[in-house]
């Protein structure tokens, strides 16, 4: 049954997330200004801090796990993009492992923090152009990897990395496989931490592979995927993206909500009433603008919840996932820019976090598939076109 009301328990969980997020926000400016200092694995408060709101008893009225997971992501990013009371275990590579790994691989590496390395200096939105190569040495039963990976999220902090490499450059997408490489493997090096517009406290690395040898069984999904050449190796890795696109949208929306909340406080302090029932023409310009931004936020958030709800129902959500990211990617840019429009000098001052939120959320429309790539996916679905028919 269609419903948009959080249960009591849902509310309590999210209130706890918010409290913790607010604590993290105290450190947000420091790690933004000191780009190459990582936030600690645990904040000093970690041992003593407890949420004032206790979780309630679970009930049938509670929202599904994927929905709550998206709302949780929004809540944490509402505090700060990078700072956590205790840093999350696991990265994108862990999602790839659980989606495509063999049961044995899942047991073996499930406890590691795994980053995901896809982008290269010469390929971003079109991962089928991956140049990093993997060649099997039949004598030693080892893969030999060579190449360079950039924009690797959690690249420094992780204990291992899932790397996309091609086993056959002539095979295009079909030749691409994922390999699990642990830190410390000879020939595998983390060389550089990127300097960025925003999400500066985030760990974004460049990785280099020079004749890096790994055992044959570190091919994600097992060896048999190599033998079935041209049959869905690429699709296996793309599967990872189905919940990550809404998650990335949720991250951006968490930041956008922080900007909206800050702007609302300032408007109210200045004596503006935010009246949703009044006609636009009779509202003061800053309020009319604010309501427009709020509508944009709400629309975007609902696309995310819808994609997550579908996942909870075990229904396909590929197109819906792209909708979330395409929508939120544009929305969060407009929202944070619009909040600065409303607040003027206060919006760009580094005394406040609004200018940081503008920089932080700008990544939403870029990584995990740019807004344009999402539109390409949506248009293909809508028009029933193949990749060849709509490039």
């Amino acid at each position, binding site marked *: 049954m269609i419903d948009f*009301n959080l249960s009591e328990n849902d509310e309590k969980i999210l209130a706890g997330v918010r409290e913790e997020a607010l604590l993290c926000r105290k450190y947000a400016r420091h790690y933004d200004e000191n780009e190459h200092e990582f936030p600690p694995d645990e904040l000093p408060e970690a041992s003593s801090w407890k949420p004032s709101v206790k979780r309630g008893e679970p009930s049938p009225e509670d929202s599904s796990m994927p929905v709550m997971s998206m709302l949780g992501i929004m809540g944490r990013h509402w505090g700060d993009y990078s700072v956590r009371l205790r840093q999350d275990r696991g990265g994108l590579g862990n999602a790839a492992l659980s989606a495509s790994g063999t049961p044995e691989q899942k047991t073996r590496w499930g406890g590691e923090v795994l980053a995901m390395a896809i982008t290269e200096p010469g390929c971003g939105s079109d991962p089928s152009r991956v140049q990093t190569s993997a060649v099997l040495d039949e004598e030693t039963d080892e893969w030999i990897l060579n190449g360079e990976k950039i924009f690797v999220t959690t690249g420094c902090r992780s204990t291992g990395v899932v790397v996309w490499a091609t086993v056959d450059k002539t095979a295009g997408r079909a030749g691409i496989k994922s390999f699990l490489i642990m830190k410390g493997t000879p020939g595998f090096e983390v060389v550089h931490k990127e300097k960025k517009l925003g999400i500066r406290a985030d760990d974004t690395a460049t990785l280099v592979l020079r004749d890096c040898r790994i055992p044959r069984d570190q091919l994600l999904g097992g060896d048999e995927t190599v033998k079935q050449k041209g049959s869905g190796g690429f699709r296996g890795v793309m599967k990872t993206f189905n919940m990550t696109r809404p998650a990335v949208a949720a991250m951006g929306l968490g930041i956008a909500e922080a900007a909206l909340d800050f702007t609302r406080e300032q408007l109210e302090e200045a004596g503006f009433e935010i009246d949703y029932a009044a006609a636009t023409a009779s509202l003061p310009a800053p309020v009319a603008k604010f*309501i427009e931004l709020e509508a944009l936020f709400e629309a975007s958030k609902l696309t995310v919840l819808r994609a997550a709800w579908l996942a909870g129902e075990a229904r396909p959500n590929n197109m819906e996932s792209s909708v979330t990211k395409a929508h939120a990617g544009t929305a969060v840019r407009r929202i944070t820019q619009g909040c600065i429009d409303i607040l003027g000098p206060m919006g760009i001052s580094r005394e406040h976090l609004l200018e940081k939120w503008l920089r932080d959320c700008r990544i939403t429309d870029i990584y995990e598939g740019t807004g344009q790539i999402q539109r390409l996916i949506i248009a293909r679905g809508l*028009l029933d076109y193949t990749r060849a028919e709509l490039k």
Partner: protein
Amino acid sequence: MISFGTTEEQEVVREAMRDFAAQALRPLARKCDEGSAIPDDLLQQIWELGLTSTQIPEAYGGGGEERSPVTNAIVLEELAHGDAALAIAGVVPSLFANAVLDFGTDAQKQALLPAFCGERFHTASLAVVEPGAFFDASRPRTVAEPKGDGFVLSGTKTLVPLADRASHFLVVARNNGGVDAFVVPRDAQGLSIGEAEKNLGLRALHTATLELERVEVGPEARLGGEAGCDVRRLLDGSRTALAAVMTGLSRAVLEYCVPYAKDREAFDEPIARKQAIAFMLADMHIEVEAMRWLTWQAASHLEKCRDASRAAGLARSYAAEKSLWIADNGIQVLGGHGYIREHPVELWFRSARTLGVLEGTVTL
């Protein structure tokens, strides 16, 4: 619980309404628009769907089915997918009946509702909008002054739907610092009903101006009696319903543009294979989805009797902006053909522009 899951019944209703809209509404949309009129037998056909009478309790002669604003939002999206003007005309009776149901006293229900439970089309209407620039539904200029037990109503209302056929008008007016609604019979002294208004869009929907020159009504005319009526809530319902209509209209544009763009060739390939066109279509799809979920959210709050003002306000303003954008770009996808009245896209564009300024012409 956050859930987008429709019930089996809602899916059955959706399919039935989709079929009806495709067979009965869409084929007549152009003719009704050009002639600025809806044939009686079409209104009768919509009446026979039972949208109004089935949701009136048995005590007042209705079908006694539970009214679900969410289901009604789904119904409106589907009907408006056929045509927005015909969809709105078809539910004008509910506009009045639902207001009486939600806020009326038992005596008012007894007096007014049985007329909506017959076999023949019957309607009354709601008078919210006022002429001139800067109209604000939450601050009407029409005023009710107390006189004896009753009231004297003065003011002007415009865009009153189906004013030519309505037996009564529910007139929204300022009353003692607040806002109330008053039931005014068609033949009330001092009430004059103007000629059909000529508007940019929704031409098939008859609307007129009402002049209220010191119209005297008794105390029983005040909807809700002593308690009055929550006009804000009434408008929340209307805004959510408008958002549902805009969603249906937008989907109609998108679904018309997709096959057109796949069929129309330029530079040796379908224009749909150009990103400039494909991305426009993708954005249309994204926004149709977004406005539907905003509509459902507001409708669900109404259904669960929660405060819906914010959700309804955001749904309406967002849907208004995006439906206009979609219809506007629908014309662009068709190019010169979009400008020609042989295709429905220019009609949808005019409808979208008109819907954006309407209040209180449709409800859940």
